[in-house]
């Protein structure tokens, strides 16, 4: 269970959030919405150790995540993808999962279902954007997370792709994983999430 306790963060005198509280339980799928600059990405960065909060506590079970390096937090099972696709232009997709080959073959069915199988031997520059976003999600899933943050996984998807993708998530993401989906649009989270949170400037987290 991931827990934020009265977390505050400001950048250059602008409070992104103060006194942010929430609990993310095991197997909970949450959609996180909010306008620009309300701290959606900052929340992910704090949970995964890429940024430090100014105040408050962040706990994973009994372990405090504050002061842990991002790689330590990742090894504890808190994984994420990135809003800007982080794929290397010099490697073909199948070399960018960064897991042993065996793991790729064991999960071939999932890779097939995601619709990226035909692109595994291509460079990122030879693939459309939705494929690259799915690739990022798959990479995170193959690293067996216990908590997964997806930062705008469906940006640029057509309506049809969005429905396919939601079906894919429901089928292949184990229900023991806690999932947080950050989106501007609400379609994807309406399709897959059981809960949604709203971030608004200078307001506590709204649970909807």
């Amino acid at each position, binding site marked *: 269970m991931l827990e934020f306790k009265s977390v505050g963060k400001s950048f250059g005198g602008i409070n992104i959030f103060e006194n942010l509280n929430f609990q993310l339980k095991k197997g909970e799928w949450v959609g996180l919405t909010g306008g620009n600059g309300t701290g959606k990405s900052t929340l992910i960065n704090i949970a995964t150790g890429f940024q430090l909060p100014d105040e408050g506590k962040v706990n994973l079970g009994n372990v405090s995540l504050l002061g842990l390096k991002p790689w330590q937090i990742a090894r504890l099972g808190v994984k994420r993808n990135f809003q800007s696709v982080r794929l*290397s232009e010099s490697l*073909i997709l*199948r070399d960018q999962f*960064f897991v*042993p080959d065996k793991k790729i073959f064991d999960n071939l069915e999932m890779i097939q279902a995601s619709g990226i199988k035909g692109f595994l*031997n291509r460079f990122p520059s030879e693939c459309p954007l939705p494929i690259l976003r799915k690739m990022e999600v798959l990479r995170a899933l193959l690293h067996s997370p216990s908590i997964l943050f997806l930062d705008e996984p469906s940006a640029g998807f057509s309506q049809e792709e969005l429905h396919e993708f939601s079906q894919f998530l429901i089928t292949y993401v184990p229900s023991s994983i806690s999932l947080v989906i950050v989106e501007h649009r609400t379609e994807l989270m309406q399709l897959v999430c059981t809960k949604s949170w709203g971030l608004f400037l200078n307001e506590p987290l709204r649970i909807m």
Partner: protein
Amino acid sequence: MSLYLITVLTNICLFSFIALSAYLILIVGEVSFGQQAFFGIGAYSLAIFFVYFDFSIISSIFFGMLICFCLALFLSLLTIKLSGLYFAMATLAFAEVFRLSMNLVRFPIEKEGRATGLNGPEGFENIRWIFENNIDPLGFFYITLITLTILVISLFILERSFIMKNARIVGKDIILAQSLGIRPRPYRVFFIGTAGAISGLGGALFALANTYIEPAMFGMMLGVHSLAYTIIGGLGLPIGPLLGVFIDIGLLESIRFLSEYRMIIFGGLVAIILIFYPEGIISPRIASRIKRLFFNKGL
């Protein structure tokens, strides 16, 4: 083979070691202007162990590499918070400190009627292993070639392991590496240390081949060339830096008749190569293309 050709080929092999050391450091995303120091430390350590302490040649080389490895580890720990330009400056400073202090150290001795030992800018003369063992230039060329081949094969094996794959992510995108649970620091430290040892091995062989070393041989230009070899050759496969050395030294030697103008031609050609191959001839992308062609893995 003519003696001239053998000498050029031996030099290509010897400088391949320093090129491979620059390659390993570039893979973890740093630029070192100091690999010439480890080349020099390898050469000097070999000379000291072999001449002063009468160690066997194998143990002299081994201890030379060990010293280079430890010093490189130390340097990488000292510069742990530095990256980019600042790391490059720190390594350059380290290399210059080494070169200038070798200018100051004098401890000449006489051995079997010949002057030898550390002698400041006049250098370290009479490292006579190849004469004592009657090794002709061709024989020494084979020794360096075999050593280099073993090294390159080990690097190819390493290339297929998770160590090299993770090191490449650390060098390319440290944020991604961390989000996948890869701890960046050990890769950086281990690669810089190993690069020091490889450069030191090259330096030790260089000292044996030349029988004479002086501090001026390990100046900044050697470090700049070591980077040029790797940047021309590319970071895709361990064979890239070798190709870079071959082009660099081969080209410079083949246009020797142009005397001082050859540097202009050389510089121009390097620029042209980099226009057509901005990531070097065997770039990571080309390495992936080769892999895609030959190793399908059924995906």
